[in-house]
C-alpha cells in the first residue's frame, strides 16, 4: 500500500542530501549560474558520497536504491540548484534504459566501469526536428556488419559536452516511425562524435547543454539495448520512470522559493509592519505551500509505484505536470513577494524563476503530460 511517510533510513538519507546541498551546492550556485560553468568537483564529491547513480543496482556500483529514495535526494539537491541537479538527473535518465533493458553482459561491460568513476552520462534523444514528437527522430543507425553506423545531430542535450557515455535514440528507417527506433550506448570518445557550442540558456545555466553530432560513429551491436524496434517502448518507459525525479526537482525549486519568500516577508517592512502581516502576502504564501505539499505527495506516489514494478505513466505524468507548473507559479510569486529586490541578481529568487521554466519543457512538456493523462482517462 502506498505509504508516503519516511523511515529512519529515508530521513537519514534526506538529511545527508540536505547537508551536502547546503555545504557544497548552495555556496557555488549563484556563481555557477553567473559564469555558466559546470562545477565538476561536485560530481566527484557526489560520487564519493553516493549521491549519483542511486538507482543503479549495487552489484554494478550504484546505490541499489529505488526511485523513492532518488526523489528524496532530488528535492534536496534541486532546492540548492536546479541547474546542478539537472545534470545528475540527466545522467540518471541516460542510465535508466540500461536498468530496464540491458543484459547482464551489457551491465558488466558498460554500467559497471561507468559507475566506478565520477562521471556523467547523457541521454541523446531530442533533435532539431524531434522534440515532443519522439517518433520523428532522424538520427540514422545503419547496420554494417557487427556495428551500427550513426549519423545525425542531437539538440539541447544536457551534459552533452561533459558526458562519458551517451545513450542515443536513433532510427533504422525514418519511414518506420516509432517501429524503427533503437537505443544504443555510445562512449563519448568514440571517433566521429563531436559537440557543438554550449547553449546560452535562460536558466539552469550550471548545466552543460549542447548539440551532439554523430558522423559515421560506429556503435557495436552489443551496445544496443533491447531488440530492434523496441526502442520506442524503451524510451517511453524511461521517460515514465524519470518523470518522478524531475517532478521532485520541481518540488525542490518550489520549496526553496517558498522558504525564501516566507523569510523575506518576515523581514521586509512597509507601512510600519512586516509584509507578512498583510493578507495578500499570506494568501500568496499559503497557495505556494499548498502546491509544494501536494506536488511532493504526487511525486512520492509516482516513485512508489515505479519501485513496486507497477505501471505509473498516469501518476508520473500528473506529478511532473503539476510539480513543474506549480514550480513556475511558485517562483513567479516568490519574485513578486520580494518586489524590486526579487528582480535583482543579488537575491536568489530570480534564479529560481528562470530555473523553473525549463521544468515545464524538458523530459516531456506540460502539454505532453496532459496528453498522457487524458489518453489514460479516455482509453475505453
Amino acid at each position: 500500500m502506498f505509504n508516503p511517510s519516511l523511515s529512519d533510513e529515508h530521513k537519514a538519507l534526506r538529511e545527508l542530501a540536505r547537508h551536502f546541498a547546503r555545504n557544497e551546492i548552495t555556496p557555488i550556485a549563484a556563481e555557477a549560474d553567473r559564469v555558466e560553468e559546470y562545477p565538476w568537483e561536485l560530481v566527484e564529491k557526489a560520487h564519493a558520497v553516493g549521491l549519483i547513480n542511486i538507482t543503479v543496482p549495487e552489484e554494478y556500483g550504484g546505490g541499489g536504491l529505488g526511485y523513492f529514495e532518488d526523489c528524496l535526494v532530488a528535492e534536496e539537491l534541486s532546492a540548492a540548484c536546479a541547474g546542478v541537479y539537472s545534470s545528475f538527473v540527466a545522467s540518471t535518465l541516460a542510465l535508466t534504459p540500461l536498468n530496464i533493458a540491458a543484459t547482464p553482459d551489457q551491465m558488466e561491460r558498460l554500467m559497471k566501469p561507468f559507475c566506478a568513476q565520477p562521471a556523467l552520462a547523457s541521454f541523446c534523444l531530442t533533435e532539431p526536428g524531434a522534440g515532443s514528437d519522439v517518433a520523428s527522430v532522424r538520427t540514422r543507425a545503419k547496420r554494417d556488419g557487427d556495428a551500427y553506423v550513426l549519423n545525425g545531430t542531437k539538440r539541447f542535450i544536457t551534459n552533452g559536452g561533459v558526458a562519458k557515455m551517451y545513450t542515443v535514440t536513433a532510427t533504422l528507417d525514418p519511414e518506420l516511425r516509432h517501429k524503427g527506433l533503437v537505443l544504443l550506448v555510445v562512449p563519448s570518445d568514440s571517433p566521429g562524435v563531436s559537440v557543438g557550442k554550449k547553449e546560452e540558456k535562460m536558466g539552469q545555466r550550471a548545466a552543460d547543454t549542447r548539440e551532439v553530432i554523430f558522423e559515421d560513429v560506429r556503435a557495436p551491436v552489443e551496445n544496443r539495448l533491447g531488440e530492434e524496434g523496441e526502442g520506442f517502448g524503451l524510451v517511453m518507459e524511461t521517460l515514465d520512470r524519470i518523470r518522478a525525479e524531475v517532478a521532485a526537482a520541481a518540488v525542490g525549486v518550489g520549496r526553496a522559493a517558498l522558504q525564501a519568500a516566507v523569510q523575506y516577508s518576515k523581514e521586509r517592512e512597509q507601512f510600519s509592519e512586516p509584509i507578512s502581516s498583510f493578507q495578500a502576502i499570506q494568501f500568496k504564501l499559503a497557495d505556494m505551500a499548498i502546491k509544494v505539499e501536494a506536488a511532493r505527495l504526487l511525486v512520492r506516489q509516482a516513485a512508489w509505484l515505479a519501485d513496486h514494478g507497477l505501471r505509473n505513466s498516469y501518476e508520473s505524468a500528473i506529478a511532473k505536470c503539476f510539480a513543474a507548473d506549480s514550480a513556475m507559479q511558485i517562483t513567479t510569486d516568490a519574485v513578486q513577494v520580494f518586489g524590486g529586490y526579487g528582480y535583482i541578481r543579488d537575491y536568489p529568487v530570480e534564479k529560481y524563476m528562470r530555473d523553473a521554466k525549463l521544468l515545464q519543457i524538458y523530459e516531456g512538456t506540460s502539454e505532453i503530460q496532459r496528453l498522457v493523462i487524458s489518453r489514460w482517462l479516455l482509453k475505453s
Partner: protein
Amino acid sequence: MSNDVLVVAEIRDGALKKISLEMLGEGRNIAKQLGGDVQAVALGHGVADVATTLALYGAQKIFVADDPSLENYTAEGYTNVLANLVKQTQPALVLLGATTAGRDLAPRLAARLAVGLASDCTGFAVQDGEVLMTRPIYAGKAIATVEEAGRPYMTTIRPNIFAAPEADTSRAAEVENIPADAGEIRAKVLEMIMEAGERVELTEADIVVSGGRGLKAPEHFALIEELADVLGAAVGASRATVDAGWKDHSYQVGQTGKVVTPTLYIACGISGAIQHLAGMKTSKYIVAVNKDPEAPIFKVADYGIVGDLFKVVPVLTEEFRKMKAEG
C-alpha cells in the same frame, strides 16, 4: 569553611594578565558580601615578585606556589597544587579566568574536589549568603542563572566583562609560600608556538575589526589590518572568509569560532548572520559597514554605515589616524 574568595591568578611572560585583575575586582565585591577576604594564588616559576603585585589590585592574602615543575601550565600539576590549597584553606568560592588555561584547569580541579563548576560566568549575585551566577548558554542566545550545591563554589569568569581595579600602591598583603609539588604530570608541554605579530589576541582585545565576504578577495584583508593597526585592535573574520581559506580559523568570530566582548566591534562587509552575531553581539559598541541596507548586522549596530566598504574603511582609517595624532 571560610567566607573568603580565592582568585587563581594568571601570569604570563612575567606579567599579570588582565583577567587576574578583573577577577580580583569582582572577587572583592563578592567577598565583601559574604563577609570574607579576597585572596589570590599564583603558580609558576620565578613568579614570586609579580605575585606580590596582586596586593595592589586588592588581594588581601597571596599564596605563591613557585617551582620549576610549575613553569608551564599543566592541568595535572596545577590541579594537584590548587586542590591541596583549597582543601587546606576551604574558601567559599574559587575564581578562575575563562582563558584557555582556566577552561582547561577548572573542570579537572572541580572534579578533583567533587564540586560543581559554572563556566564562563558574566555575572554574580549574593542572596542570603548564597552566590548565584549568570552565564551565557546557546552561544549567548540565552542566559542561565545557576546555583551550586557543593562547596567551595567554583567558576570561571569571562575576560573583559568585569572592570579591573586601579592599582593602589598603598595596599599590601601577607604572602604565603605553599607546597608547590606538582606531583605526577603525564600530559606535558613540549613547546609553545606563538603566532608572529604584535597584534592583540582576539578574545582579549578592547577593539576588534572584522572582515567578511564583502571584502571580495583575501588580499583585501589588508584594509581591515590597516584599520586595526591604527586602532591597536585585533583582527577578526567571519565564518565565510575562514571557510574560503582567507583567514585561519583562529580569527573566526561567531558561534563556531570565538566569542568576543570588546568595547568596540567594527564589522566590515559582514552581513550579520545569526552565527556571527552569537560571537560579537555583546560587544559594548558595534559599528557596521555594509553596502546592503537590509543586512541584519544593522539591527544590532549602534552606528551603521550603508556604503561600499572600499570607500568607507580607508576613510575611517584616515580619520582615526588624524584623531590619534591630535592626541
